[in-house]
Structure formats: structure tokens, C-alpha cells
């Protein structure tokens, strides 16, 4: 590179709004804030609802007035829509932050070492939160997720390979049905497993049945994400493999899958994050238990979402507190999976 012979020129951005052009907007925002505070103080409008409603109305009024007076009707419409879009974005964020805040503030109190090391077999439902724990639920969820992954990861991956690599005659149809399958209500998956496993085969509740129901919900997520990942593999790699005389099987196994590895891991983890918190199918399949059950194919078992559900329906204050603690642990688990998925997909993008 040249040793700065040319004078250092800062890049100019002529489209950037100047202070003079921002001034009316600032003025409008100021007017909105002041008038809202005044109106809430003077009129009987009270509380958060009154405050936010007044704020919205005032923001609309002043943005329309300012742009309408300065320019024309079109500008007024433009500012109305701008206000609406910002409000919509805020409304999307409010529930999320409220949920995260409430889970933290209500769940953190019950979060002691004890709940990770004990189960509920020796504690009654209305015992204080310091007694008992949710180890049985964590173990149940880990079993469920592991078995569901063992079932659905190969099936989802094969489905993606069928659509992208083999391009079979039914590829379009399979793609369409997998899309539709991702909308199957979770309760229907539970009913189906109940019909096959309990009514049809005469088994009783166990974690394996729950995992089968979760696998049905997990397959579409894994298949669709893997499909997108496989489509991103450059065709050069595929053609190079075939041109070297490799069979399709060796091309896929030695070139395509290794190249797509981190993306495929992301697909599986996203599937896990999708089903780890599913409750409805578990209500029909795993039976629920208060003690640790280490055998996933025999005897009732519990799971974190089931634990939350059960304590919520019991309804006494201690159970409710347990439910919040369970929700906190469940959310931590989901976030761990989610962060892992983002980490692996970020690795792919970086390469």
C-alpha cells in the first residue's frame, strides 16, 4: 500500500441525515415525552396502561403534525407508519423480556444445589422448596432427548439427502410433506404413539414411548435444516468427487457430509431445542414419576416439562415455586442447546 501521500480523507456519507434534518424529529420526541407526562399527571389516566396509551397517541399526533405541516399528507402517512412499525417492534420485545425476567426472579430463589441432586420420592408436594429436587426430571429429559435424537437424526438426515443428493422421483412431494409435518400438533403425535404403543401393542407408560413421540416432532426440523445446509455445499465439490471416479455413495460419505458437518450438527441441536420443552405428548406417554427411573423402556418416568406441568396443576404455593424453578432449569437447558447450535452454525459461516 502507498505510504500516505494523499491527504487523509474521511469517507463522507452525504445521505446521512444532518443535525438540522434530525432536529424536527427530536423536537417531536421531546414534545411527546413532555405532553405525556403532563397529561398523565393532570388527567385521571393512571398506571402503565394509561401511560403507554397516552405515549402512543401523543407520538402519533406530534409526528403527524410536524411532518404534515413541514411537508405534505404523504409525509404524514409516512410518519404514522414509522411510529406503528417502532411500536410493533417494541411489542415483540416486551413479552420476551418479561418472560425472561419473571423466570429469573421467581426461579432463582429455589435454585439450590439440592434440586440437582435429589428427587421428589421422599418429599411431599407441599413440602418447602428446599426439600426434594428435580434430578429425576432432568434424567428423564436427558433420556427422552437422547432417544429421540437417535431415532430422528438418521431419518431427518436421510430425508435431506434424498431431497438434495439422490433427487428421487418423490423429492418434491417429500419436501412438501416434511414442511407440512412440522405443523403437526404435538398432542397428535402423543395420541398416535399412545394408539400404537399402548392400545396397539399393550405396553404401559415409559420414556421410550415419549421419545418416539418427540422424534416425530423432531424429524421435520432436522430434515429441513439439513436440507438447507446440504444445498449450500458448492456443486464443485460434488462434481470433483464424481470426476475422480468416486461412486455417489463415496462422494456423499467422504466429501459432502464432512463438508457439511457443523451445519448438520446445528440441525440436530435445533431439533433438540425444539422438542426438549414439549409437554403435551409427554402427558400421554411417559406416565410421570417422583423417583429416578434409570430404565427408559420400563416403568413411569418424568421430564422437566412434565415436572413443571404437574407442579402447576397441584397449585399449592410450594408447588408453584417448584414449577418456576423447573421452568428456569428447562430454559437454561434450551438456551444451552440454542447457543451450541449458533456456535456450530457460526463456525460454518466463518469457514
Amino acid at each position, binding site marked *: 500500500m502507498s505510504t500516505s501521500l494523499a491527504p487523509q480523507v474521511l469517507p463522507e456519507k452525504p445521505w446521512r441525515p444532518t443535525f438540522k434534518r434530525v432536529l424536527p424529529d427530536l423536537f417531536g420526541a421531546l414534545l411527546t415525552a413532555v405532553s405525556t407526562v403532563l397529561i398523565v399527571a393532570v388527567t385521571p389516566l393512571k398506571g402503565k*396502561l394509561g401511560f403507554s396509551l397516552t405515549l402512543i397517541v401523543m407520538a402519533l399526533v406530534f409526528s403527524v403534525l410536524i411532518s404534515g405541516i413541514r411537508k405534505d399528507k404523504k409525509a404524514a402517512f*409516512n410518519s404514522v407508519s414509522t411510529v406503528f*412499525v417502532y411500536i*410493533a417492534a417494541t411489542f415483540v420485545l416486551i413479552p*420476551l423480556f418479561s418472560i425472561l425476567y419473571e423466570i429469573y426472579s421467581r426461579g432463582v430463589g429455589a435454585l439450590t444445589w439440592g434440586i440437582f441432586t435429589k428427587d421428589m420420592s421422599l418429599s411431599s408436594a407441599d413440602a418447602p422448596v428446599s426439600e426434594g429436587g428435580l434430578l429425576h426430571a432432568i434424567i428423564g429429559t436427558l433420556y427422552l432427548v437422547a432417544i429421540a435424537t437417535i431415532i430422528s437424526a438418521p431419518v431427518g438426515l436421510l430425508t435431506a439427502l434424498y431431497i438434495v443428493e439422490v433427487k428421487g422421483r418423490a423429492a418434491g412431494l417429500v419436501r412438501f410433506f416434511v414442511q407440512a*409435518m412440522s405443523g*403437526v400438533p404435538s398432542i*397428535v403425535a402423543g*395420541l398416535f404413539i399412545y*394408539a400404537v404403543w399402548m392400545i396397539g401393542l399393550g405396553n404401559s407408560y415409559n420414556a421410550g414411548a415419549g421419545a418416539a413421540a418427540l422424534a416425530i416432532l423432531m424429524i421435520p426440523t432436522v430434515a429441513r435444516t439439513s436440507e438447507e445446509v446440504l444445498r449450500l455445499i458448492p456443486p464443485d465439490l460434488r462434481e470433483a468427487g464424481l470426476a475422480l471416479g468416486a461412486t455417489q455413495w463415496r462422494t456423499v460419505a467422504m466429501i459432502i457430509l464432512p463438508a457439511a458437518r457443523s451445519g448438520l450438527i446445528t440441525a440436530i441441536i435445533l431439533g433438540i431445542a425444539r422438542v426438549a420443552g414439549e409437554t403435551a405428548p409427554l402427558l400421554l406417554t411417559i406416565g410421570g414419576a417422583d423417583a429416578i427411573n434409570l430404565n427408559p423402556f420400563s416403568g413411569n418416568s418424568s421430564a422437566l416439562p412434565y415436572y413443571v406441568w404437574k407442579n402447576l396443576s397441584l397449585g399449592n404455593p410450594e408447588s408453584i415455586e417448584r414449577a418456576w424453578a423447573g421452568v428456569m432449569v428447562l430454559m437454561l437447558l434450551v438456551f444451552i442447546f440454542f447457543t451450541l447450535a449458533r456456535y456450530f452454525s457460526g463456525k460454518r459461516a466463518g469457514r
Partner: protein
Amino acid sequence: MSTAAPTSPPKRVITTKPRFSDKVFRAIVTAGGLSSLVVLALIAFFLVYNGLDVFRSEGLKFLTGFDWIDASPEEGLPAQYGIGAMLYGTLVIGFLAVLFGVPIAVGAALFLSYYAPEWIKKPMVVVVDVMAAIPSVVFGLWGFFILMPHAEYWAKLIHKYLGFIPFFDMPAPAFTRSPFIAGLVLAIMIIPIVTSISREIFAQTPLDRIQAAYALGATKWSMIKAVVFPYGAGGIVGGAMLGLGRALGETVAVYTVLNLVYDIRIEVLLSAGGSVASMIVNKFGEADAPELRALMAAGFVLFLVTLLVNFIANIIINRTARKG
């Protein structure tokens, strides 16, 4: 130079037979690929097979009847199973969810695509993804303990000032666990999927049209109205229908915030509503064999309705995405 039009060489035909390993590979992949079709078919088959008796004995009354009464042999009364009220309630809360959720979701998608500065945009996309990963039981718990007290107050305000409209009338002062509140919770649950699908479709709007609109002096809103909405209309409709499908099949969150009543009421603020999915959970615990069959039949109806909504939604979205 010859004047004859250049002709493309004849297409080459691959004559080599596939290797044995490739045959095995394709067979396995095809089997795996077709398994999702098989699973869907099996779901339909088993639910119909188990619910067949109920479909036969109740006939069309299964879809229109309001009563869910077990047989009582001592009084000699036969069982009556009808999911009419629940089906109606499901549609009501689904409609409310779309009504509340879709405008906010589309607004948020517009914000992310055209209004947000880069430093807000990236984290907010992640935040919306995170929201999609929150389990429904969490929404149920939050909806019951946090949202419900607020929503009850809003419902009272609506009733006070708009009570003359039949939908907001109240025969009894019971404002909790109403279709209105269930609709709010469902709206929050469907916002992430509607937002991300609308955003994907908006991203495919041709850039030259956008720049052409700006060059002609359009404001941001006129540009969106003239370019983005016509191109993305299918995506918005399809996304809204996908959200509707989710809302119709939602079980646990609805069960916690909705009071199930076997009656058709138009008052959405009243603590009386219905949901097929929640009814299945509600009745499953103490169901005997005939009632279980009726629940299977109800599950089949739910399966069909959501599958249909999803089919239509995906057709619309795929068509819009291809056009863009």
C-alpha cells in the same frame, strides 16, 4: 462462416450401470426419505382406526354436537361425544391470535427489514429466534401468573367502554381464563414464526424496484405500499396461516389460560371457551376405553384441520418465494 443456425449437440445419455454400492445407498436414502410420508400416513391410519367406532355411531354429530357425556348404564343413556363447541372455540382463539399477532409480527418484520439500524437488527433477529425456542409450558406459566392479571384489567376496560358490542358483553363478571386471554398468549407464541417468514419474503423484494420507487420520490411508506406489500403479500398470508396452524394445535399453554366450557358463546371476554387440543389433555386422564376412542377421533379432526391449514400456507409461501 456457415449461415446455418448453430445446433446444440445431442444430449448425452449415461449408459454406465450404477454400482452395487450406489444401489444400496440410494435404496437406504430413499427408504429414509419416504419414512416421513409413511409416518404421516400411519398417524392418520391409527387415529382413524381407533376412532372409527365413534365416527360411525356419532356421524356428523361428532363435529356439530355440543355434548361430551359418558355412557351411564344405570340410567340406560348412551354416550354422546360431540366436539362442536371445542372446534368453534379453537377457531375463535386461532382467529384472535392471528388478529393480535399478525399486525405486530408484520410490523416487526418491516422494522427489521427497512427501519432498524444494523446494530439493532442483528441482536433482534437472534431475540426473535430465541422467542421461537421458548417451550409452550413456559408461555402457559407466564400467561397464567403474569399476563392474566394485566389482561383481566384490559378486558374490564374493553367491557366498560365497548360493552354495547355483543362480542364484549358479559353475562357474568368472570374475566379470567377467557378466549381473549388465550388469544393474547397464542398471539405472542405465533409472532416469531410470522415475523421470520415475513422477513424472509421481504428480503426477496427486488432491489431495483425499491430503488426505483425511492428515485421517483416515494417516502418509505409509499415504497413499502407500492413495492414490498404487492411482492410479499403471499408471504404475509402464508406466514399468518402457518401461525394459525400453530395456534390451532397448541395444547398446554391454552389449557392453562382457558376455561373449557361445552357451549358456544360469542362473548370473547367471558371465562368460557374451547380448544380441541386442550380438551384431549383435559379428558385423557380419566378416560375409559370408549371415551379414549372419541379422543382419538377428536385428535384426527385436529390433525386434518392443521394439516390442511399448513398445506395451503406452504403452497402460498412456496409460490411467493419462487416469484420473488
